[in-house]
């Protein structure tokens, strides 16, 4: 038996122990590979530089990082189980170098098998994903292809991952003490220390992070709060600070604060000494301390999964709403004064719409652009034109005096209380010859998002007095009832009019924005669900690995307890409390994290995402419950075989 043969025998004959490790490797490789097949698909890759490629690329990178962590944790659990075996080998004279080589060889054998298996299963799975993706992107069909790039990428990255993990194994197993390896994890439980300062810090960091997340929603409650909110707004990289604060807070929550709480329960003697409470509390202190890192990771992964899924779910359900708000009119054509074909082009649009049987209302407006000497651009619309649009959009009509002005937001999300173009109190035109007092802000965009920045409504008389005119636009907006069916018409118009001509005219439709948004958001949805699902699966597997590793150690304890007269019912209760704490504390904390994370999201979206949040959280609660019940049942049945009854 040569050394290589030895490693091979280990893998070949120890299937049961290697299986969990092998399967989790296959799973991550399969996920990575399937996604890579999408990424390198000629149709998607052909749109290089596009948003789709960018999103997919970033997703793939996230999956890669996740894979590394996941395989590292799997291998850690797997090597711990074998520490006694390594102790024996070292006592027989295996050097550290040989041990590393053995683990490396084993890892490479498993790695290569896992890569081959993962890619094979992935080929089948990716066909399914491609079908899904093509329906999402509304491409006719993404044909199946031989994804040699994806295969190559997967092989290269995962060989690197397995190499990296082999290099890290000396950190996982302590090769310095043979005695420690031989006795395995059966080291006596030492006294658990915690720091009150760090426990308080945990709450403080979580609170700070949460407060920063909701701060934009706290504006205008009272002046003192406003100052804090504005201060937070000025902090550079506030999102990074917020996230770091919550992440560090979460870690301290598990490593310090939870111990503090359990110690406090312990001090409450009438509770602590009541029946089996003493068992689960004292045990949980060690369990949580030992598993702090794992619980932390599970919480963060779950929070990312929940947030991603809530986010994409919310985005996709508000897309229609948003298109309507961004484009209050189905089609808007705008002409510069130098365009001598303006009337013909409008006629083309009119006729095209009529020929296709669309009923429409047309609103024509004139907008003056004025650039002051200090380079400040203002767009001006007269009150009568504004009122025509306002009545079409169901807004209040305005009646301005000669020296009054109304401001109009250029983007939907502009906050009238805070945006600097909308908080102006006075407007001055014609280099200070016309001075107007701002009497209000229009509640909506009246052209479409992004058109006519710094738009001001003035009295018709004032409008006619304006002398400095840098440009005079004519803008025609069409209100089409049946706008969802205008894609075909739009495409035909694009053939004739193109996108526009610089300095002459340009035009935009709601349907195109809607289609684009829709596609992007469906892609988000796809990516979000994908990431969310694998992150959640990964988080659950971490828990499972941990329980699996602890099982044997726990078994001895319960056997002992049953011998001194603890009933099986009580053992069941103690075990259930412990497992449920490990399962649900991360879930609850992750849900709270998610709630605050979506508050940040809320400021970007226009509608409330609370209902989507609740749906996601409840769905995961159910998944978690099912998982908990199945793990608990298995565990209890396992114990049943050993304890004295």
């Amino acid at each position, binding site marked *: *038996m040569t050394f290589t043969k*030895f490693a091979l025998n280990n893998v070949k*004959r120890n299937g049961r122990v290697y299986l969990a490790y092998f399967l989790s490797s296959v799973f991550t490789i399969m996920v990575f590979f399937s996604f890579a097949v999408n990424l390198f698909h000629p149709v998607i890759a052909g749109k290089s530089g596009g948003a789709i490629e960018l999103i997919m690329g970033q997703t793939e990178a996230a999956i890669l990082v996740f894979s590394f962590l996941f395989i590292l944790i799997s291998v850690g659990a797997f090597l711990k189980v074998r520490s006694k*075996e390594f102790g024996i080998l070292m006592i027989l*004279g*295996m*050097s550290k170098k040989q041990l590393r080589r053995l683990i490396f060889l084993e890892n490479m054998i498993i790695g290569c098998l896992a890569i081959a298996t993962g890619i094979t299963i992935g080929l089948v799975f990716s066909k399914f994903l491609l079908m899904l993706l093509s329906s999402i992107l509304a491409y006719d069909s993404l044909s199946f292809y031989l994804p040699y790039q994806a295969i190559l990428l997967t092989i290269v990255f995962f060989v690197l991952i397995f190499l990296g993990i082999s290099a890290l194994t000396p950190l996982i197993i302590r090769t310095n003490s043979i005695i420690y390896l031989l006795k395995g994890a059966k080291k006596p439980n030492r006294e658990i220390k915690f720091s009150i300062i760090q426990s308080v810090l945990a709450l403080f960091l979580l609170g700070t992070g949460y407060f920063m997340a909701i701060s934009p929603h706290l504006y205008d409650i009272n002046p003192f709060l406003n100052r804090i909110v504005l201060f937070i707004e000025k902090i550079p990289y506030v999102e990074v600070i917020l996230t770091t604060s919550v992440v560090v807070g979460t870690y301290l929550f598990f490593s310090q604060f939870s111990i503090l709480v359990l110690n406090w329960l312990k001090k409450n003697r009438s509770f602590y000494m009541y029946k089996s409470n003493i068992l689960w509390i004292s045990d949980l202190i060690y369990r949580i301390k030992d598993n702090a890192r794992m619980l932390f990771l599970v919480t963060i992964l779950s929070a990312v999964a929940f947030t991603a899924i809530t986010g994409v779910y919310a985005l996709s359900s508000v897309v229609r709403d948003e298109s309507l708000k961004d484009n209050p009119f189905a089609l808007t054509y705008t002409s510069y004064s130098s365009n001598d074909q303006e009337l013909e082009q409008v006629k083309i649009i009119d006729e095209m719409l009529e020929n296709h049987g669309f009923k429409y209302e047309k609103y024509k407006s004139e907008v003056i652009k004025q650039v002051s000497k200090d380079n400040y651009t203002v767009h001006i619309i007269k009150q009568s034109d504004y009122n025509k649009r306002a009545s079409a959009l169901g807004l209040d009509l305005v009646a301005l005096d000669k020296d009054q002005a109304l401001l109009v937001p250029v983007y939907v999300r502009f906050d009238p209380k805070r945006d600097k173009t909308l908080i102006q109190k006075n407007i001055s035109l014609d280099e200070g010859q016309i001075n107007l007092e701002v009497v209000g802000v229009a509640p909506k965009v009246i052209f479409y998002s992004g058109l006519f920045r710094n738009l001001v409504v003035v009295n018709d008389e004032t409008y006619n007095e304006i002398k400095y005119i840098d440009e005079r636009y004519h803008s025609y907006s069409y209100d089409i009832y049946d706008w969802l069916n205008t894609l075909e018409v739009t495409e035909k118009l694009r053939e004739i009019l193109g996108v526009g001509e610089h300095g002459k005219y340009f035009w935009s439709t709601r349907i195109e924005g809607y289609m684009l948004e829709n596609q992007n958001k469906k892609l988000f949805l796809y990516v979000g669900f994908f990431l969310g699902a694998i992150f959640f699966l990964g988080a659950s597997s971490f828990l499972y690995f941990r329980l699996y590793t602890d099982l044997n150690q726990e078994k001895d304890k319960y056997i002992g307890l049953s011998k001194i007269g603890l009933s099986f019912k009580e053992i069941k209760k103690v075990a259930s409390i412990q497992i449920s704490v490990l399962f649900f504390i991360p879930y609850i904390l992750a849900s709270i994290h998610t709630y605050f994370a979506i508050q940040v999201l809320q400021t970007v979206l226009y509608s409330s995402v609370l209902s989507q949040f609740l749906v996601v959280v409840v769905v995961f609660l159910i998944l978690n419950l099912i998982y908990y019940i199945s793990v608990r049942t298995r565990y209890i049945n396992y114990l049943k075989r050993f304890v004295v009854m």
Partner: protein
Amino acid sequence: MLEILKLNHIYKIYGDKVQHSALKDINLSIEKGEFVGIMGPSGSGKTTLLNVISTIDAPTSGEVLINGENPYKLDSSELALFRRRKLGFVFQDFNLIDTLTIGENIILPLTLDGQRVSTMDKKLKEVAARLNIENIISKRTYEVSGGQAQRTAIARAIIHSPLLLLADEPTGNLDSKAAKDVMELFESINRDTGVTTVMVTHDPKSASYCHRVMFIKDGQFFNEIHRGDSHQKFYHEILDVLSLLGGEAR
């Protein structure tokens, strides 16, 4: 005579806050070909002493010399080489590798040493014949009895002709018949190959196969007795010392 093992003033202290001396000033000299037993009650430090000799648990102070060489002064790769070539171990719970067959377990030290497959096969044949386990060498560890497993462990411990054979309660997990077989094997191997053997045991019957037995109590040297001609007589002498030690020898 050549001195194979020499212990000079060995101390072993555990713990940081609450210190506890496991070994106090142990001195021992073992010559080539000797078969020495170490006995003592539970917690007397006999296993700690064997671990110190086994090069896996460094003494707090004092010197261990094996064949004139202090293994704790070697770096980790030299130490691995030292264990691989000069020492052989037999444990109470056999410590065989489950993924390997009996035969593969036996040749493991040679595999680690990178020896040629033909050499391995030749040596395996010899040692298996000596231990009468030729018929099980292709079996897996869970397919053999405790006595056979311990024979396998002994085969593994001697296949590379070590300088020093160390055994930690080798009969602890065996019934009396298998224990007798194993001890007779140790005796015959020691006699035929002249391998110096040190064994920790709590069983007076097993200890009676040794040339001499050292007793320790509370980490300190207590007594030492030598075997005369008769097993039976030595056995009774051992029992006498144990009762002097105060109670059961475990």
